[in-house]
């Protein structure tokens, strides 16, 4: 059993094959995309592999500590930030191969012309607990 984070990027990933921005899709194409994503999550719930997920707004703020007694400093968003996360999903699966297969399936979500986007998703393994037996 291993947990993986699937990351969808607004930018920072290589361009997808079907590279038409979402706001240029027809309403039907957009609806088909949403349905595909919902169905994918439902299948994972049904198979007992779903842990969580959410879509994120592209608008974000950077925050940092500014010293004792001072309010935190906020800044951004920074136009030069190369990487922008669009959403995440956490899965709990039997193997790395299973995680790859699921990421591949998610990347096939339909976009313009109802064709797969072939977008690049990032797959990141969680750090788990140390095993009891190591020697």
């Amino acid at each position: 059993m291993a947990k993986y984070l699937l990351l969808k990027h607004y930018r920072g990933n290589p361009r997808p094959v079907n590279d038409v921005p979402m706001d240029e899709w027809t309403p039907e194409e957009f609806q088909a995309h949403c349905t595909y994503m919902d169905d994918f999550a439902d299948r994972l719930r049904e198979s007992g592999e779903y842990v969580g997920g959410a879509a994120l707004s592209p608008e974000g703020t950077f925050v940092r500590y500014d010293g004792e007694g001072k309010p935190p400093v906020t800044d951004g968003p920074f136009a030069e930030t190369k990487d922008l996360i669009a959403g995440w999903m956490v899965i709990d699966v039997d193997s790395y191969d299973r995680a790859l297969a699921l990421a591949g399936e998610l990347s096939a979500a339909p976009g313009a012309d109802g064709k797969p986007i072939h977008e690049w998703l990032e797959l990141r393994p969680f750090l788990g607990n140390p095993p009891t037996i190591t020697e």
Partner: protein
Amino acid sequence: MSIAPEHLRDLIPEVIGVLVRRGADFASAEDAVQEALVQLLTATDGPRDAKGWLVTVAWRKFLDATRSESARRARELRQETEPEPGPVSGTDETLQLYFLCAHPSLTPTSAVALTLRAVGGLTTRQIAEAYLVPESTMAQRISRAKRTISEHRLDEPGDVGVVLRVLYLVFNEGYSGDVDLAAEAIRLTRRLAAGVDEPEVHGLLALMLLHHARRAARTTPDGALVPLAEQDRSRWDTSRIAEGVAVLQAALARDRLGEYQAQAAVAALHADALDAAETDWPQIVEWYDELAALTDSPVVRLNRAVAVGEADGALAGLAALAQVDPTTPRHTAAAAYLHEKAGDRTTAARLYADAARAATNQAEVNHLTRQAARLNWSPSA
């Protein structure tokens, strides 16, 4: 409630066995017994005869559930296609349940979840918390596992090796949530050992007891890993060690060596040393040779290389390590350790930093990063 939950959970597989013998299918029987268990655990007065009470209440819940129209149709269909279950003797029922829950048609993840629920009597919520997934996810995993094994019967012969693998996985999961999976694995293995005359079952029990004995010394209060050589051995649990050694010796006397017995023998030799310097490394190397002959696993050969480094010196250890596939987990960490032992602190520091990046859990990342920092800050010490 005067009955300890652990004792109640011991009864679960027996009660499931009774329901199945009376004609319930496994999945419905398991659900009914869980419901009865929850009712008993929340009752203010416990019954005198907990098993009899559980059988009565679980059977009633099973009948209630199957009386619904759709369930009745499913049952009638099943009775047409399935022969009547044969007689199952009382003592074998629990064992048969272990076999069914570890059935080879299940993925390891599913077998673990089903074993903890049907044999261990843990609730879905407890299992979900132990594996850090939502309760609904674990519920789905368990119900899918039940569907997968629904065409298999409780009295099919099973493979003890597959059961042991599942119990090993539960034990090795570590100590994450509120449920102590290591203690639960020991409890389930102990019960299996009471009913199965197979040295490897006892070998696995000994292995678990010997590792569990070191639990208090394995980590600092803030969760940092303490390597075996640096553990405060006065904090090892001597009664668990004594039991583990006794169980192992009885198993070895049967002269049917297997990988769990050999692993337990290594753990017993560590347990036997009053301090790290007294460890009988040459004998540990011999046990790793036995283990390599039994499994031919790269992990075993990696551990053997570290033992060779202790028995015959760091250079011999590095030579042994050079024969091990470098993609084996912890290969870089072992190389770092042996290079430091050989006096090359610069290489060791670099390898520890590399190993930290490749580690798969936070405690090891922290431990390896600390090792790299220690060497980088005192390079000539």
